[in-house]
């Protein structure tokens, strides 16, 4: 079947089987391999992307179910060579080691701050409970999220009011 959607602002279209999961549509049909497959069983969050701005596990959605939707992958965050504030914060706070979980972590954290621009540490830990990291012990990931929430507060507030959510 023909499946059309917008990925990182560009219209995409591919003829895929109905059983194609969104993550394989992105990786194999669109060729964007930044979205990783970890557990392949809906648990680890490595495959997290934004669907109309909200975090979802792309291994647990049929591509067919999101026809016409707006999908953001890790490749779509940076503005040219300027990193997105969340990416910059992960870099500054050493929020990654091997990097496998990182695309999913960054997108899950982006969705979290769009809902709640000034979370407490506990809210960050709970908000990222769908994402597993084998390397960092989570400590620096949480630090990175709190860091950008504080340092880029205007950026996150603007996003939150755009999505109609207030802190």
């Amino acid at each position, binding site marked *: 079947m023909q499946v059309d959607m917008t990925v990182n602002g560009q219209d995409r279209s591919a003829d895929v089987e109905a059983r194609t999961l969104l993550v394989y549509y992105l990786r194999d049909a669109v060729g964007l391999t930044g979205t990783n497959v970890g557990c392949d069983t809906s648990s680890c969050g490595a495959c997290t992307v934004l669907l109309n701005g909200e975090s979802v596990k792309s291994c*647990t959605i049929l591509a067919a179910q999101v026809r016409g939707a707006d999908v953001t992958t890790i490749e779509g965050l940076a503005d040219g060579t300027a990193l997105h504030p969340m990416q910059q914060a992960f870099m500054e706070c050493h929020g990654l080691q091997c990097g496998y979980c990182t695309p999913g972590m960054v997108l899950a954290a982006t969705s979290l701050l769009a809902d709640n621009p000034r979370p407490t540490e506990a809210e960050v830990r709970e908000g990222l409970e769908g994402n597993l990291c084998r390397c960092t012990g989570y400590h620096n990931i949480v630090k990175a999220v709190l860091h950008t929430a504080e340092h880029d507060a205007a950026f996150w507030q603007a996003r939150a009011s755009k999505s109609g959510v207030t802190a």
Partner: protein
Amino acid sequence: MIPASFDYVEAASAEAAIAALTEHGDEAKLMAGGHSLIPLMRFRLATPAVVVDISRLSGLSYVRDGGDHLAIGALTRHCDVETSDMVRSQAGLLAHVAGQVGDPQVRHRGTIGGSLAHGDPASDLPAALLALGGSVVARGPGGERVIPAAELFTGFLETALAPDELLTEVRVPKVPDARWSFQKFNRRAQDWAIVGVAACGNGAGTGVALINMGQTPMVAAAVQSALASGASAADAAARAAEGTEPPDDLNGDAEYRTHLAQVLVGRALAEMA
């Protein structure tokens, strides 16, 4: 792991979904958020020949004031139940429980109707609906009927819904002043409950329901009748496992679950006191 091949039908309306179910019979499966069905299909534990996608029936995503109850569309996602002001103020237990399901990504996709129609004894929302004394609306080729939560869960992953019926609405009594408690016992963030308890004051007394204590989501009948006849919270909690058949699995054996049920009902009643 990739699901087996199937024909995909996107239903444009509730009526179209029911027509597709009628046409394809046993071969067809509805897909709402897909967060129970897709994992089953990937493990090939479910191999429907036809998937009827209802995930974009936005007309079935709502929270409305139904007079003495709240009416919640079956396709309302967990995150929308969790953050709805009306659910928070009129049925606080339900909003809280919706916020405890899985993780944010799961709550951005999973729906209340899917959770109830799936009938998993380990899931959270069925217990909340049982404790609140709610009901669901089922629509089939012959029209609509209301099924009380207490009659919905009939066996392991089996419900009173007929194969050609669509769950369209969830009805929850308004209990703005009720005391409630939700106890979800697990060992890691994001995990399902090893045992859980949902309890809430409702029109009929105190509703108490158990998660993962048998083949179906279930009411703690012995606890409810003990409370109704004036027993102390401790005596009522001691009866939490009566009539249950807790499973033995990697997370705990039946004896451990029996103990947990008593402790968690005790905590719930203490929190509500």
